[in-house]
């Protein structure tokens, strides 16, 4: 049963993977171009992290096959991970305040 299911669940052809690879390369190129634009640090950070999350989602969905797995596997693994990472962001506000709070030299 499991072997039959695996064959059925292969998902994605060679062409799909090549397309995903090209999109990933394109997004990397966009990131490199963006690095040479004069943008405030926090906005630049947001755009770069946003693009990276899109790339990560593509890798997880297609290369790591998550799109073709059962929803239960995704629900077991990812909501907790995302929640923990978002919890870390609580401290990021401090990082933006520290430079302002420094006494003038």
């Amino acid at each position, binding site marked *: 049963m*499991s072997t039959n*299911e*695996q*064959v059925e*669940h*292969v998902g994605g052809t*060679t062409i799909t*993977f*090549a397309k995903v*690879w090209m999109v*990933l*390369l394109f997004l*990397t190129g966009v*990131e*490199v171009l*963006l*690095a*040479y634009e*004069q943008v405030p*640090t*926090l906005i*630049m*950070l947001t755009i*770069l*992290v946003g*693009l*990276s999350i899109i*790339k*990560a989602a593509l*890798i*997880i969905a*297609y*290369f*790591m*096959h998550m799109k073709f*797995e*059962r929803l*239960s*596997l995704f629900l*077991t*693994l*990812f909501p*907790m*991970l995302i929640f*923990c*990472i978002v919890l*870390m*962001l609580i*401290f*990021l506000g*401090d*990082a*933006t305040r*520290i*430079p302002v709070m420094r006494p003038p030299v």
Partner: protein
Amino acid sequence: MSTVSVAASTSPWAGGQSPYATNSKKFGMWLFIISDSLTFSALLFAYTYSRVANPDWPKPFHFSPSIIFSSIMTFCLLSSSLTMVMAVHAMNHGNRKSAFKWILGTMVGGAAFVVLHLSEWMNLINNEGVTPFHNPWDVPLFGATFFALTGLHMTHVIIGLIYLGIIAQAVIRGKFKYEDVEVAGLYWHFVDLVWMFIFPLVYLMSARI
């Protein structure tokens, strides 16, 4: 009594069923990947925190060689991910020879990444004077976080190369099954995925314009 046993055998908790429809090796690797991604996100977060909190954070990465090198390294890792997918694909169709070749291709991509990364490190250490505890710009946190983050990632790549080497020689000798290659592939894609965050956050955010 017979109704009880029927009910027990159809319950998803009765055993003998796989709620995720995946084998235990793959699920184990997924659990490892989730915990390892928390490690990397903590390190990335520490780096970003220091980066945002220090207005005089150094920007040591010149377009040539650092940004060019790291872009080529990104290309190497992305392409090696594609070849790994092809290896899993070939193995799924029972073509061990083709799978072996694709895994070797993946290892070449990974090895190129390590070589480029080490030369990039040597460039930073020798030409820019960055070490884990000192640097010319008086922001010691830069070296500490940079080498910890990229060093841990490079360790993962090197472990991945050893892992793939073991898988490759087993595949060509007719050992191991499809799922073993797939699990190795999961690990390799994860290493690639982590670099997709390190490259913009560490290199592009500190590119010297």
